């Protein structure tokens, strides 16, 4: 039975890799197949309809609310010009030193990455940041990679991600926060190293390009002036509250939304702007919401008693327990989280994490370490992830070029995270 479940999972991965099915649909079908193969009844306790579909779909509800609030704040940062002002100031201060500008954009991307993820995060920092870096001589691949590496620096402090791992792995938020704080230095060092090394290696580039110049009127968003300096602190507000004062995630994000609003908006316009950006936030959040519904369903399926019983002996046989072996094996397996591979934590990887915990092979906190380490790779180097595709296309290069350039750095981050996991939790 366990082998059949693994074959079903392999078929699901193949469907995702070949893009026959969108990830969210593939995960739901996978969950249904696993539940049926495990012998789950159609209704009642531990059943296909009541447990897998009904309970699973809403299992990550807290994460979904956090995603919506993060997207709402992201929309506000965009609409009020906070993100644009941050990048403009960086270019004005450091524009004749491309490495300084790139480090500044990296910092802005990291801030944005703490608020929201995926393509919207890349767009917030990259719409002005990427062409601004290119304009001061940063090569295009380096510029696209800088935004992605920056977002990855923020990911350990992205509150919706804390909520996701807390709910999905059934761990207290404090435990997730504790590990993320340990993972952050690896992400930061790798990102700074990327900017400094790649700018030194590749130098600067200036092109006489055929990009036409126009007399078109600027859009409303483009006409936005600089926001006041205190409004620029908006992305930090949720972080200070959640990390520094240990306030719960949803109130922290709401505080960020309110701060961004009151520091940039006249009282008479607040209602309209709040509603407009909230609805815009839902639009941005739609793809991850669909994915989190599917992941919740998959997690419910792999936790069914029949599935756990079938998978336990197989997983135990192949899972390394010696700390050195653990680090070596899972570091070598890093590429399996690329191209929607089986270790992608926002895909089948979430199911595998669920199996590892449900079967008791590793403590939940060790699985957290593994999953978050892989998340650092997926978020930057996966040529199928939306932020990578968007950043590369916007810079005018291929996602694969960005993957090749950034992979060594994020692989090292994953290795660092796995070392911490093995040292502390195995």
């Amino acid at each position: 039975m366990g082998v059949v479940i693994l074959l079903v999972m392999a078929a699901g991965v193949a469907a995702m890799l070949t893009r026959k099915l969108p990830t969210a649909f593939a995960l739901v079908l996978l969950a249904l197949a696993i539940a049926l193969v495990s012998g789950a009844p159609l209704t009642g306790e531990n059943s296909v309809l009541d447990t897998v579909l009904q309970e699973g779909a809403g299992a990550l509800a807290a994460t979904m609310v956090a995603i919506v609030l993060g997207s709402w704040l992201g929309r506000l940062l965009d609409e009020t010009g906070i993100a644009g002002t941050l990048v403009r100031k960086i270019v004005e201060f450091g524009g004749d030193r491309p490495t300084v500008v790139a480090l500044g954009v990296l910092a802005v991307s990291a801030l944005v990455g703490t608020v929201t993820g995926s393509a919207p995060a890349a767009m917030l920092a990259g719409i002005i940041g990427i062409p601004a870096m290119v304009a001061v001589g940063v090569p295009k691949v380096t510029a696209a990679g800088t935004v992605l590496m920056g977002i990855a620096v923020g990911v350990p402090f992205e509150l919706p991600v804390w909520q996701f791992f807390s709910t999905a792995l059934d761990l207290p938020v404090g435990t997730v926060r504790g590990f993320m704080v340990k993972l952050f230095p690896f992400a930061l060092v790798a990102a700074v190293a990327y900017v400094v090394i790649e700018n030194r290696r590749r130098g600067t580039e200036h092109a006489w390009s055929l990009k036409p110049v126009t007399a078109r009127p600027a859009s409303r968003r483009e006409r936005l002036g600089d926001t006041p300096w205190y409004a620029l602190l908006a992305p930090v507000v949720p972080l200070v509250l959640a990390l520094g004062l240990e306030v719960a995630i949803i109130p922290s994000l709401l505080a960020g939304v309110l701060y961004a609003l009151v520091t940039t908006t006249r009282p008479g316009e607040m209602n309209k702007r709040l509603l407009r950006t909230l609805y815009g936030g839902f639009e941005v959040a739609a793809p991850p919401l669909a994915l989190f519904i599917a992941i919740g369903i998959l997690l419910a399926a792999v936790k069914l008693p029949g599935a756990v019983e079938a998978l336990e002996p197989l997983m135990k046989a192949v899972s390394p327990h010696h700390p050195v072996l653990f680090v070596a094996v899972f570091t070598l397996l890093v590429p399996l989280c690329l191209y929607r591979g089986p270790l992608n934590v926002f895909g089948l990887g979430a199911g595998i994490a669920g199996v590892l915990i449900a079967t008791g092979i590793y403590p939940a906190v060790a699985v957290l370490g593994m999953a978050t380490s892989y998340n650092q790779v997926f978020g930057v180097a996966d040529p199928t992830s939306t932020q990578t595709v968007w950043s590369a296309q916007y810079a005018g290069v291929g996602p694969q070029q960005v993957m090749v350039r950034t992979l060594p750095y994020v692989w090292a981050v994953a290795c660092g995270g796995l070392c911490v996991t093995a040292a502390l939790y195995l």
Partner: protein
Amino acid sequence: MTAAHTNAPADPAAVDDIEWAVRLLAATPTHEHRDPELLRRWARAADAFGAALPPVECTARIVERDGGLERGLLARYTSRPPTVELYADTVALAEEVVDARGWRAWFPPGSVRAAALAHEAVHAHLHHGRARAALKHALGHSALRLGRLRVPGHVAGAEEVAAHAYARTVCGLGRSPLLLTAALAAEADARSHRPAPSPARDARREN
């Protein structure tokens, strides 16, 4: 964005060189909200700075290759190793455009290649030399003022305007290469007929 989406005038020569420089600055990220008069002042200052630069020798390795039209480039300078890439297909098309538009008096035969080399030589000069600080000084933009303390601000795109002005001066061109760039972009776009990929097209796929 491609030329097909622009409001390029029917006769680009009707737009003066400083206005082309203003448009270049306005299209450069970080200037979206700037007052057009401020951009005009910066365009004039950068143009004057480039035109007044003493002759700069191009010490970088020069490589000629094709593929410029596909990449939307006429020339490119890279600092490691110092190299100027000249895209022969784009240069050839530029010469055709000059003939077709009747601009030969402004851009003599072979002047496009010479202008490209001069343009990239200035980038190399500004990259390695102190001229970069001088350009910043000439523009007079402040990133921060605290009482008597003033931090000069970088103006993105000004270096490009200066490089074009330098190329115009040392190559004895009748008009700025920015004019030629505008006409060339329109011609290249008309020949390719390729819609520009929307960078945001994939932004809403799954996570």
